[in-house]
């Protein structure tokens, strides 16, 4: 009986403890806990958003900014007939591409360098120097199809999507306005990757494989790209400027893989048109005019 009374007396401090815990420190701790929870949820939401695939419109925004910077640096080669021709060849090789949720746009950059670029969203550029190196339409088709292959394979897009640091700020006000800090950072990163560092060799081989398939499905012989690459290798050895040979896998290896596919697929392309005459006529404007 005594013991029972003694144990009841312990109820007072226990009750007081619960009361103090509930009324005393609880409101402050609760507020801190709520704040922590809120911050955690906000962070989780941002991470989740940054890891989601980009929409086609977001991809186009980045492509537009990359294109604007390329044009600002190199300037467009202003010739309506030549631009039309490049777009005709480009549209022909882009037609069999797996990616038809975007439109492909082609333009010529006013540069002697032998380069071709593709930006996310289907913006494809070839330089005057690269056009000058091509000997026929099949080679031009091969180069443009390789670039279409990069867009269709989402090679640049996947890198951008994976980089949380680059995508940070995408929710900021005016982030999607042309020239915004976010789009500048994004497009600058893409250009450094494309031109200074190069894509992964696997992505280049993939673009080659896609490219030869598109060119062939369009009716051109499959070896146009390989013939262009061989000349590019020689041209850069003789001092020609191109980031393709600097950042891309060795031409020998690329051409070996292209040849392997042609053999494996048993493609007989001898009767397919290379269209050298049409190419010469359409690119006449690029040929140096004889001095009078």
């Amino acid at each position, binding site marked *: 009986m005594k013991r029972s009374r003694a144990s009841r007396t312990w109820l007072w401090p226990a009750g007081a403890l619960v009361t103090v815990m509930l009324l*005393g420190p609880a409101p402050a701790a609760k507020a801190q806990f709520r704040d922590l929870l809120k911050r955690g949820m906000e962070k989780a939401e941002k991470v989740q958003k940054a890891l989601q695939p980009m929409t086609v419109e977001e991809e186009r925004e980045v492509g537009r900014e990359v294109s604007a*910077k390329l044009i600002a640096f190199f300037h467009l080669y202003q010739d309506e007939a030549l631009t039309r021709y490049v777009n005709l060849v480009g549209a022909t090789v882009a037609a069999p591409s797996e990616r038809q949720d975007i439109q492909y746009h082609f333009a010529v950059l006013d540069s002697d360098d032998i380069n071709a670029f593709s930006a996310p969203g289907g913006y494809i550029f070839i330089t005057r120097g690269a056009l000058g190196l091509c000997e026929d339409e099949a080679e031009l088709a091969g180069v443009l199809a390789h670039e279409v292959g990069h867009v269709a394979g989402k090679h640049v897009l996947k890198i951008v999507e994976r980089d949380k640091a680059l995508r940070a700020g995408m929710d900021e006000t005016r982030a999607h306005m042309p020239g915004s800090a976010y789009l500048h950072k994004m497009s600058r*990163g893409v*250009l450094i990757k494309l031109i200074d560092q190069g894509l992964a060799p696997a992505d280049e081989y993939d673009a080659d494989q896609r490219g030869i398939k598109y060119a062939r499905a369009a009716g051109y012989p499959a070896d146009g790209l390989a013939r262009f690459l061989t000349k590019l290798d020689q041209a850069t050895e003789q001092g020609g400027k191109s980031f393709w040979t600097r950042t891309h896998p060795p031409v020998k290896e690329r051409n070996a893989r292209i040849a392997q596919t042609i053999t494996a697929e048993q493609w007989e392309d001898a009767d397919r048109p290379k269209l050298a005459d049409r190419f010469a006529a359409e690119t006449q404007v690029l040929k140096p005019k004889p001095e009078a």
Partner: protein
Amino acid sequence: MNRQVKLHAFFIILLLALAVGVPRAISQEQASEDQQKSEKEQKQKKKKGGFFSGLKAIRGESSEQQEVTATAGSKTVGEGEQIGDAQPTASDRQAVTTMENYAVPEKDLKKFQDDGKLKAKQ
């Protein structure tokens, strides 16, 4: 009884100490966590270069190779970096819009493919 009063007094003091001490401990812990986090973030910023950090895993480059690239990059600005820093004018942006709006008429494309004896798969 006297002993019980002493015990009660002890527990009341203990509870008061807890009431004052717990929130302080929580806020101190929070401040320490925030400080640790900010130090960690600063270290990561120094180590990683945003866009470049993802590339290392993709290309399978060693950290040594990355450092060499970074050093080379700091001495000479790459062309990609120069182009990336270009500030497009309104006319450059207009050129992009013109590029987007340019579409070869379907009829012309068909004629182009027919003339070249190409059989494009649509």
